[in-house]
């Protein structure tokens, strides 16, 4: 059975902003874009591990605060000339609540 974990309300995340969620497998960034979609990715830039939640959110991307890599929130991949990717975590919205797929944040622990 697919299990989802409720991590908070949509309104807890600022529009064009992000929050971070601590999990046993490390920090996860939860992003809310201008069109009110929500994405979750591992909060470590593939470049030097910068905290992506601290970046500027634009379109469906975030720019890492350390060295300005632009990471796609949809695929987790670095944009432009940079190469690398972070893991993405499936998200579901249910009546104003944000849910993360448990299997995705527990993946490492289970392995």
């Amino acid at each position, binding site marked *: 059975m697919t299990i989802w974990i409720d991590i908070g309300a949509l309104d807890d995340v600022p529009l064009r902003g992000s*929050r971070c969620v601590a999990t046993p497998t490390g920090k996860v960034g939860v992003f809310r874009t201008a069109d009110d979609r929500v994405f979750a990715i591992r909060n470590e830039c593939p470049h030097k591990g910068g905290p992506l939640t601290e970046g*500027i959110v634009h379109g469906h991307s975030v720019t890492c*605060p350390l060295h300005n890599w632009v990471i796609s929130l949809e695929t987790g991949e670095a944009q432009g000339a940079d190469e690398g990717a972070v893991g993405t975590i499936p998200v579901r919205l249910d009546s104003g609540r944000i849910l993360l797929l448990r299997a995705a944040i527990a993946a490492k622990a289970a392995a």
Partner: protein
Amino acid sequence: MTERLVIIGNGMAPGRMLEHLLDAAPAAYDVTIFNAEPRVNYDRIMLSPVLSGEKTYDDIVIHDDAWYASHGITLHRGHRIASIDRDAKTVTSEGGITAPYDRLVIATGSNPFMIPVPGKDLPGVLAYRDLDDVQTMLRMAERGGRAVVIGGGLLGLEAAAGLKQRGMEVTVLHVMPTLMERQLDPAAGYLLEKELKRRGIHVITKANTKAILGRTHVQGVELADGTQIPASLVVMAVGIRPNVQIAKDAGLEVGRGIVTTDAMQTSDPAIYSVGECAEVGGQVYGLVAPLYEQARVLAAHLSGDTAPRFVHVDTPTKLKVTGIDLYSLGDFAEGDDREEIVLRDASAGVYKRLVLKDNVIIGTVLYGETADGAWFNDLKKKATDVSAMRDTLIFGQMFQGGTQSDPLQAVAALPDDAEICGCNGVCKGRITGAIRSKGLTDLDGVRAHTKASASCGSCTGLVEKILKLELGDAFNPAAVQPMCPCTTHGHDEVRRLIRAKALKTIPAVMQELEWSTSCGCAKCRPALNYYLVCDWPEDYRDDYQSRFINERVHANIQKDGTYSVVPRMWGGMTSSSELRAIADVVDKFDIPAVKVTGGQRIDMLGIRKEDLPAVWADLGKAGFVSGQAYAKGLRTVKTCVGNTWCRFGTQDSTGLGIRLEKFMWGSWTPAKLKLAVSGCPRNCAEATCKDIGVICVDSGFEIHFAGAAGLDIKGTEVLGHAATEDEALEIVVALTQMYREGARYLERIYKWTKRIGVPEIKKQIIDDLPRRRAFFDRFVHSQRFAQVDPWSERVSGKDKHEFKPMAVVGYQEAAE
């Protein structure tokens, strides 16, 4: 011997004439100019963009002081000529200067026609003719209220649109049934009227002005039918009359204008005339293209080439109102011997009409979509037989020959002799020739060498396409570098448009300036946020999602994601209790590193984000506020101990440093701003490599600026001397405000200075006291909203979400 050439008037026509003359025969004449206006030669066509705020006076100067100096030309500004003595060959100004001439050019231009109705001389009734008129309008517009523009021609409508954009309620009165009837047919006039009304400008046609109302100042306008329209400003733009008085008094032949031959020579062979005052071939002219042609002809004659003659050519008309595309050319009256082709697209607001006679285009009116104007003009000029392409002619050039969908192709297809710049009569071949022979790579180069796009600028797009065709990818149309890939506008344009259009939110900027992305990017958003903070300190709500992390959480992010915290130590002074408080905080939060910074303060490094509010709370209790060591804003003011302790100190440098820091803290600037005050020229505070530095001397304070000691190393420039601390503070603050308003985001003060020049900054801050004061006052106003300690705000709970995780998912919960 060098002949003496005297020119009466310093408008665009004589200015252009001189350029040609200096090219052809640089040493032939000793030139003296008398100008009734107290200015250099500027581009009058661009007065409307100045009124609307899209350009500044400095942008439209054609010849600056240096130009006159470098060509050895004597320019008497503010000197109106009172008389010409043709026997003695001298002119005498109202100011009493007499100058002898061998040859004389009369270029007195024209006077605006003021309708002879009661009240026309009341204060508040203006013409729309020169920069003084524009400046008066701008002053009136600042107070808001209502304006009436009399005249629905080219100038009147540009004035109306400009005043509306400046926030006035505007009514246009036009005596004819449709607007711009001399350039537009009724259908296009109707579309134009509809568009102006949509923009909130009232238009009354068939309006006969009977009187201007008011006793001490204009209060309104009364029409013949009794309608009264209240107004505090009335602009008359009903036409011009050639200014011929001086020629008439001198006994020259005068008709509507000063009568000249087709070589621009008047009835006295030693006297010439060009510009709006001249009548050649029975016609007087008001548009710039034929006037520039007159200038070219006269220059040739003065340099000894008598071949060129002035020949009449129809000039296209364009309206310079942003967002209204309108083009008209030639003769478009109906007639039995004429045919017309019309295209209307009501929903797109497009109207095109071609008038043909014997299968040749003789007139064109384009509204809403004018890209094909140049092509139609070309067909008309060459009297091309259009019968073969008649069916599709109205769809424009791209439609001919099938599938060319690339707008570049349309330009590529133009023949070499197709006119690109109507104002300056520059054809495509001359532009491509100049690009090749001079190795030009940008728009400025083309403007400098050919004049194309250097007057009204409406052909800029065409010129850029030609550059693109010639240079391929080597051409970066960023003669203006766009801010970022989301827009084609450069920083300066964006800043100007934010002010001109009173844009006060990031979405408004992106909408109005046609951003290509939905919400910008990490480059443009922080820049826009700064521009809006700077320009609208009272109204703008800072968008924290558009700030870099450091400014969002008021600490400096480190490579491991922890933060560093630097409290202010005013002027680098501290005390035992402050040091004790810092020591306690370091112990309590187990802060791994403490460092003395180069800016005379203490940095605590390696603080976890979650701990920041608690760290700040403890620091706040000891009286500390944020040192803004993370900000594009005022950072430190470094000082030496000055005459309080030092045996060489000349002034209280520490005291002045603290005063500056307390006055300026909290202000946002385009890039970081670091100050220093040294108590004597030994300069222990290293003020001469700072953004702004003060060196105390016996007689007061030397103000330095534009130093750098980072990626670049550069000593400061000297701005000026202040006798008192108060004056030093005023200069430093005014300079900061000028920099805040003028620089591009992330542009340090030394780069900004390099771009605009030290003399310009001295002129505005040192020489022009009212201007300095105005900068100072705007800074003070802005500080009312900026001087809030961000740390104590956050200790009190602001942006709580920033400092803790949204959720903590434990092992149990996450276990499969």
